[in-house]
């Protein structure tokens, strides 16, 4: 059974992001790797919420993350080495109460292997309201997304700089929650400067849709976040947060970095 866009209502994530966006707030979506740092990661969720995150992406580690650069790969691999698995990640997430929407970010085989129905209901039971599956593009997404819609799990689609103009409206009309604009032609990871493609991507998406437009990939610092948020509604920051901890920083250091991102966005 499929649910057509006309019968579909904005979910928790979209409603929350829209309300904040419409009130003039720039959106901050930090990322946590489920299982890294071992034992400490669940408290990052409430920690990020307490310093002003608007939603949190929770990575469920996968063995072969082709869209991820060295930082996220390393965190995933460390988590898997410590025995992280989807069920354990979701069980820990269920215990948290951050008061903001949570988004699962993983690769499609994790979802496919569990089964669409079970994956969707597991997310829901864990209090997660949305999913990002970066290797499930528009042409392949419908089977999962229809099930997700039924379970009120919002499937966020990515839009990339390589997309021709005619493709963007089709992506945003199937995307739920927000549309995730890919800031550069490449994989996740920090960059010294914000790519010009990030602003261009934000502009193209803003011209296409009223959905919240959030840019991620290559957004590494408070300055870059503020720069891209001049055009976009918000940002996803992942590698820069995780690297702080890979390089010996504490979870508190990561949380205070998210606070710096918040302050920079509030200055836009």
């Amino acid at each position: 059974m499929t649910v057509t866009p006309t019968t579909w209502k904005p979910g928790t994530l979209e409603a929350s992001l829209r309300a904040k966006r419409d009130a003039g707030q720039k959106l901050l979506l930090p990322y946590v790797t489920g299982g890294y740092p071992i034992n400490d990661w669940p408290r990052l969720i409430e920690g990020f919420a307490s310093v002003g995150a608007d939603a949190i992406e929770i990575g469920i580690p996968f063995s072969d993350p082709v869209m991820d650069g060295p930082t996220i790969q390393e965190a995933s691999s460390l988590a898997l080495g410590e025995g992280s698995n989807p069920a354990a990640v979701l069980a820990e997430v269920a215990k948290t109460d951050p008061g903001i929407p949570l988004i699962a970010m993983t690769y499609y085989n994790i979802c496919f292997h569990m089964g669409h129905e079970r994956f969707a209901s597991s997310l829901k039971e864990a209090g997660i309201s949305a999913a990002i599956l970066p290797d499930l593009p528009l042409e392949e997404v419908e089977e999962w997304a229809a099930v997700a819609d039924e379970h009120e799990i919002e499937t966020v689609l990515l839009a990339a700089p390589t997309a021709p103009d005619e493709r963007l409206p089709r992506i945003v009309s199937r995307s739920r929650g927000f549309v995730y604009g890919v800031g550069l032609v490449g994989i996740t990871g920090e960059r010294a400067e914000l790519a010009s493609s990030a602003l261009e991507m934000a502009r193209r998406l803003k011209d296409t849709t009223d959905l919240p437009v959030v840019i991620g990939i290559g957004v590494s610092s408070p300055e870059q976040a503020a720069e891209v948020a001049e055009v976009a509604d918000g940002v996803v920051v992942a590698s820069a947060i995780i690297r702080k901890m890979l390089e010996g920083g504490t979870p508190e250091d990561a949380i205070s970095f998210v606070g710096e991102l918040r302050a920079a966005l509030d200055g836009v």
Partner: protein
Amino acid sequence: MTAIDASPSVMGDPDENGRFGRFGGRYVPETLVPACAELEDAFREAWSDPEFIKEFHDLLRDYAGRPSPVTECHNLSAELGFRVLLKREDLNHTGSHKINNVLGQALLAKRMGKTRLVAETGAGQHGVATATAAALLGMECIVFMGEVDMKRQALNVFRMRLLGSEVRAAMSGSRTLKDAVNEAMRYWVAAVESTYYCLGSVMGPHPYPWMVREFHRVIGNEAREQCAELLGPDSNGGVPDVVVACVGGGSNAIGIFSGFADTNAELVGAEPSLGAAVGRQVPGVVHGSMSYLMQDEFGQVQEAHSVSAGLDYPGVGPEHAHLAEIGRARYEPVTDSEVIEAFQLMSRTEGIIPALEPAHGLAWMVKAKDELAGKTVLLNMSGRGDKDVAQVQAILDGDVEALEMMRS
């Protein structure tokens, strides 16, 4: 045995979504979707252009040395009790069937205006073949190879560098073929506008499984004609009773199967027992397509293990999954020790040192000799064994130290 479905639609084109039955598709990051679509359009256009096809076939003849012969193995036949024929892909330039695909893809890349090839390699055969095509056609080439494989196959690393290619170590995960594919895909995501991804097997996102099959179809087409001539019309209409090939990703098998899919020949793929993606029959999605995939209870991809680096891959091309599901081909496991036996048997009886990969096919034939008695069996000799002799020597000498070094 169930009746063989020999309808012409078997091994036809995939549907418009790149599916063979329920397998295949295009599970790639959004960034790559337009590049896959562009590649599909370019391939369709080139593959219907007689000029392109002539250019490809001229290269296969004048550069790769095609057609490769079919050799009847009289000694082996006497020993095993059935008629053994070999399709001699080991005699191609660069020593394996891999050259067919890379010449096709490199010509296509050039036609598309791309200046750089990127490829993954396991044992190094596809990497060497890609480096060869890049040298011939004057293109830049970067090959990703797992760090473990670079140690196991140091000579192939040198060959690629000699051919002017850059070899980059894949340092993530198990540091073998699957990680080399991950790194090549990551590179492609970042350099998609200038770079052509020259994938080495019938896997990956649509159109690769289909396109790579079409470039290897020449193996089956030649063999069909050669068998008809050799066997004559009275022997099952000039068609072997059984066609055998080894299966890792499955490109040589797809190539030879495609020539016999519409006959009553039984098609058999030999998989390493610890890399038997089809044997386990668990579907999954990795590296761009849905197929059978070795994975744990949570869907994490597992590492395959095989004495042959070329078959050390946890997935399999989606068309094989489809052929298995509809019962048109069967897939049988063989162990490393059976493969080492077969490697020696072929060398001793026929004076042909096979690569460890096709030795998997022979290993199955030896195991199944009662079932095969009196039949005619065509084995795709997909590559020559020079690259493997040091490893086999170490195994036979029980040289633990040398083996540790090669397997890291």
